[in-house]
């Protein structure tokens, strides 16, 4: 598994120091989530340590329609955007990995563009474009959906491209030699082998959309408001442990979802793809 040099080659004392440093950085990473969780079940209205008492009142408040509506909106629009981005990203990945054609390099640049340029800028540009075209009525839902598809697309293309490059070309050749039509090769050979790549693409696209607060910053409208923007608006007026409970829900929901998706396929390789050397 571990490429490169292995632990046995390091001086034990140096390795011990490294372990301690890594442990501190992990604590730093998990710190905020832990204390948000703590604040969501403690009785004090501000986060004091040690926590005072235990209550589920904040969670009860977080599960009222005022908060569940934006959470459900976020889940729905993220799922829709991810599916659209996955379909478009798959055909784009096939075109980019399987063919050379005039304009290909321009297309690669265009595909990577949303990754490099700030999402906030895209939000500004989309709002201005919709307004100039007289489509302001569609800003709320349509604007956010298109914005999410655009920011998710590079991730889908990338994951599917990795998936395609893992498929041996000879498998397809064998199928077509044995008389399968090109369409049948795609459907019966490529698509099943591509399953993990597609799942990983969907997963990354969903995370991009669900955790976004930049695209929606200028495009969200009352009634079409994702949970992140709702929390941001709430933080202006004050601090409440209810937000801690809402935050925990928005963290737990995608985790559960991916635990379920993970049962249908493995995309570990897509997250931390080890480049193994023989």
């Amino acid at each position, binding site marked *: 598994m571990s490429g490169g040099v292995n632990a046995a080659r390091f001086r034990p004392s140096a390795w011990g120091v490294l372990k301690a440093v890594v442990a501190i*950085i992990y604590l730093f990473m998990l710190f905020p989530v832990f204390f948000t969780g703590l604040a969501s079940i403690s009785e004090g209205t501000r986060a004091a340590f040690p926590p005072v008492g235990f209550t589920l009142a904040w969670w009860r408040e977080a599960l009222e329609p005022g908060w569940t509506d934006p959470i459900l909106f976020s889940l729905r629009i993220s799922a829709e955007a991810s599916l659209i981005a996955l379909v478009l990203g798959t055909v784009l990945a096939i075109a980019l990995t399987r063919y050379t054609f005039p304009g290909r390099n321009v297309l690669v640049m265009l595909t990577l563009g949303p990754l490099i340029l*700030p999402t906030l800028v895209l939000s500004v*540009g989309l709002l201005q474009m919709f307004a*100039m075209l007289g489509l302001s009525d569609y800003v709320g839902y349509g604007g956010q959906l298109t914005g999410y598809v655009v920011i998710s697309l590079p991730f889908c293309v990338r994951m599917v491209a990795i998936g395609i490059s893992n498929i041996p070309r000879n498998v397809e050749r064998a199928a077509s030699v044995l008389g399968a039509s090109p369409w049948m090769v795609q459907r019966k050979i490529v698509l099943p082998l591509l399953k993990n790549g597609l799942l990983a693409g969907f997963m990354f696209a969903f995370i991009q959309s669900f955790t976004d607060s930049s695209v929606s910053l200028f495009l969200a409208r009352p009634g079409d408001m994702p949970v992140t923007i709702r929390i941001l608006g709430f933080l202006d007026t004050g601090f409440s442990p209810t937000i801690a409970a809402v935050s925990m829900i928005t963290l737990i929901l995608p985790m559960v979802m*991916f635990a379920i998706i993970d049962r249908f396929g493995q995309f*570990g390789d897509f997250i931390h793809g080890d480049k193994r050397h023989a």
Partner: protein
Amino acid sequence: MTLAAAAQPATLEPRGTDVESRADPAVLAGVQPPATPTSFVAAARTLISVPWLLALAPAALLFFFFLVPTLIMLSLSVVRSEAIGPHGDITLANYVYLLSSPFYVWAVLRTFIIGISTGVLVVAAAFPVAFFLAHTRSRFRGALIALCLTPLLASVVVRTYGWYIILSNYGLFNETLLSVGAIDARIHFVPSTAAIVVGLVHALLPYGILTIMNSLTAINPNVVRAAQSLGATRLSVFVKIIMPLCIPGIVGGFLLAFTGAISAFATAAILGGPKQETIATLINTFMTGVLDWSLSGALGGILIVSTIAVTALGYWFGVGKARI
């Protein structure tokens, strides 16, 4: 191989062996294409080829909903800002206005200070973790990688809110320090520029870890073995072999952290407060408060130009180099 490795478009290269699929079917069939096709015919042939038919819908999406909006925003930044819509003469007045006011210059400078410190700290904290994860033989390795990625599932708003709980006047740090007796008066950790940096380092750390781990695991162990068999010490292997080979990962991690930090709105707004204006919070003010689309466009233009410049510099400096 990772979402963080987005700075390396190499995976998108078509695989070299597929000569047949690339050859013109007309040539394969023994039919010579016309020697000098008119440009119109050539263009038509290009557009109705299989890859362009596949790429048509996603390319149209990127063109109309990524390129066009960005260009509209940039074009609004070079006209006067009297009302919505591009009219009037082309002028750099918006940029001049922003860069001649100390308030806005400070906001821009603060943004870049935040970006650079976040980038440096992300790389400094990500490297030990990446090095550990790349070399450990612990059976918890997979779980540890998953654990450092789980924060990505939480939105920046959620994670920043956690820091607010910890750093605020009545938050964890102040209450703990007061009760222990280490301080007499509450320290105002937030709002401050330092708090923004802490929140951003936390938010962007996973990207740095992934990018650096990627380049560390890509190092061929035989290179290390060769150096050792030739008598290199542990230190010189690290300094002369491992460090140079993972410069692309380090530069990539810095780029991701820097570009993420200079355009971050939520973290700056929650942990920075009204006195710590950055480019992102100013864009928000101009877009929603003042309704000046030209000035927000100009700020967006500054973000775009600096992002592209730093990315290009990073490529030139490191990402393209040191491949074995």
